[in-house]
């Protein structure tokens, strides 16, 4: 007979101190979102637009009739294809992954546009949830990659409970609805019924690129175009899937316990 208690004690502590202190967020060697500096683009180059599988790039014409390229991280699945296609240094691989944002606009790299941080949410949430946060997760058509990382939040390395964040079985006890997947047609009804069952105030997190824009499943008869057309979204966590650290960053951002790092598509190291 195995004594698991002793085995557990002998194994010692496996939990990272991040984000309170230390750097060990478990993200070593991961490839993050590409950095984009449109000012370095070759004139009239369209390589990334043609190659990106999720149509994350778009063009727009400025006041001086100059066309510029914008990148929407809300459609980006970190596939790194654009980096390989870029003939200049405008697109580069990075290790930046904690991209959670309070506003959809902050996910867009767009020359000239300003960051519009959602200050209203900031004051609303932080006054309510001092101690703990209860999260109801809904899978609205994910590939299960996002679930796998949400489950990883409870492993001894990340140990989400230490941060006072808990997943609840019932929407009735939930403060936050965390949605994964693009919201496919057959999940729309169950999703909305879950939201209706939540007490107020209630907040919504789009966890992963899928629920932000539907990409890469925003096509066909049974795709979805994300959460925003169905529910008001408070926090956007792009990634395919977001890493556990990116999920934690997003959950802490909701309660103003951590700073947003992405503003107007630019990432603060």
């Amino acid at each position, binding site marked *: 007979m195995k004594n698991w208690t002793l085995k557990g004690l002998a194994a010692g502590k496996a939990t990272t101190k991040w984000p309170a202190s230390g750097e060990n967020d478990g993200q070593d060697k991961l490839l993050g979102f590409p950095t984009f500096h449109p000012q370095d683009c070759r004139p009239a180059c369209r390589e990334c637009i043609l190659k990106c599988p999720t149509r994350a790039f778009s063009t727009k014409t400025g006041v001086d009739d100059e066309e510029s390229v914008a990148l929407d991280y809300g459609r980006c699945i970190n596939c790194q294809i654009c980096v390989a296609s870029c003939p200049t240094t405008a697109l580069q691989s990075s290790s930046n992954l904690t991209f959670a944002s309070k506003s959809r606009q902050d996910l867009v790299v767009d020359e000239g546009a300003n960051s519009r941080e959602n200050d209203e949410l900031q004051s609303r949430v932080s006054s309510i949830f001092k101690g703990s946060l209860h999260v109801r*997760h809904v899978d609205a058509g994910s*590939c299960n990659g996002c679930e796998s990382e949400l489950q990883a939040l409870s492993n001894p390395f990340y140990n989400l409970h230490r941060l006072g964040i808990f997943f609840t079985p019932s929407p009735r006890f939930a403060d936050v609805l965390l949605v994964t997947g693009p919201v496919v047609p057959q999940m729309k009804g169950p999703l909305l019924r879950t939201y209706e069952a939540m007490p107020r105030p209630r907040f919504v997190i789009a966890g992963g690129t899928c629920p932000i824009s539907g990409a890469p499943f925003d096509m066909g008869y049974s795709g979805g175009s994300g959460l925003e057309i169905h529910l008001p979204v408070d926090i956007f966590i792009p990634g395919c899937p977001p890493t556990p650290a990116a999920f934690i960053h997003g959950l802490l951002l909701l309660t103003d316990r951590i700073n947003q790092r992405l503003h107007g598509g630019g990432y603060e190291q």
Partner: protein
Amino acid sequence: MGTLVKVQVAASQLLNEARSLLQEGYRFQMAYLRYMGPVPEIVYLVDRGPNFEFLELTVRAETELPSLSDLVPLLSWYEREIMDLSDIIFTGNPEPFPLVLLEGMALTSLPFDPTSKEILQLFGDTTPPQLPEVLATQVQDLFWGPIRGDVLETGEFHFAYIGEEILHYTPRLFYKHRGIEQDLQQQDPESGVILAERVSGVGTICHGLAYCLAVEDALRLDVPRRAQLLRVILAEMERIYNNLHFFSMLSKTTTLKVGEAFGALLEERAKQINAQLTGHRFLRNVLAVGGLRRDLNADILPTILSNLQRDAIDYLDSLSVTQSYLDRLIGTGPLPADVAFDFGATGPVAHGSGIKRDLRVHHPYSMYERLSLEIPVRTGGDALARSQVRGEALISAFDLIRQATELLEPGEIAAASPTSQPELADGLGWTEGPRGSCFYAVRIRNGLLERVKIKSASFSNWKVFPLTVHSSNMMDYAINEASFGLTIAGADR
């Protein structure tokens, strides 16, 4: 060698043909709808035994076709999916109600029909399912889902039970149906891998690789040796973290808290090693049609994996002497070998019921024929047997990575582009993933994907699972489900 032998039969001959194939000991793998111009046909994929080409049996689809489900029970779900997505009816299908499109939902037109000009959309709201009538008194109904506790995939489960005994169990999946097969239509074959990698997140490699192999088969691409071996390493890395997850979940359902935590931590370490190797915790964004997108430094693996292997063995050893854990697994969810065979069980579920089939051995791909591999088998058919074959598969994955690393030599990692494009080309690709067999059948016309059929391991095993739940105990349900190690995303697509 090609992968496919093609045979066409008339609808009137279908039943006879199926009977004679079964007499040969052949096994049906899947069935799907494909159009040849405006003409719909049903394609049956048949395994003729180790190292033989697969048989593709096609029958021109009329509005009514005889169901093969009585002869080949595993085909029932394929027939139901075809009935949901087309006008075709399989007469005699034993469970002729909706499968993929849930009650309350409807399509504006038909997904695979090239003659349809309507805009294609799925609309409506799900309504309660049609359930078999249970003729007994004092039967209680329990619906669990579609949104369940914790962080779980969406699925709805119905139990008809008396006291502790489950009389009848019906899983209602496909809430998550994304229509990926249709999304892939008209894409260029190279970019399709991005979606294939995202059919099932924890099956990124088994799906992505089966897709690449299918396209490479159709376009006759020769994948360089180094890329083939690195693909084996990726596939076995996927097996490692998935099986560690499996033991963590099995510990959880047997209320072995520390065992659950140990498994979860080992899984986390495995995912972090995935990241070291590929830059992605699920090994994404490396596979490409023709090989790999970039070379990988596998030299780092022997050292980092040896620690993980040692701790994984120690973990499995500890579990194997934990009486409370073993007691809950012994005799739970028994699956006899003939039922496993007829209903299509695959991977560890089949291996636990004494069926010794593994595509890596019987239809080797990507240089598995150069590696030595024992298929783990148990005859118990219960949760214990399923966990034991998982444990052996986990340990053998480390060994396979070592073997593949030793064979690695510097070299190319991508095939040369094909010089000419055939107007029409069919290809078949398959992998043995952590949960069992995964098949991709592709048809490429004029350089674009015309039809892609995806068969995931979980689609097969979900069909089998309910048979082990009927007449079982409520208390054992979660353990039994964990012992099957199913995912929903891959089945739903």
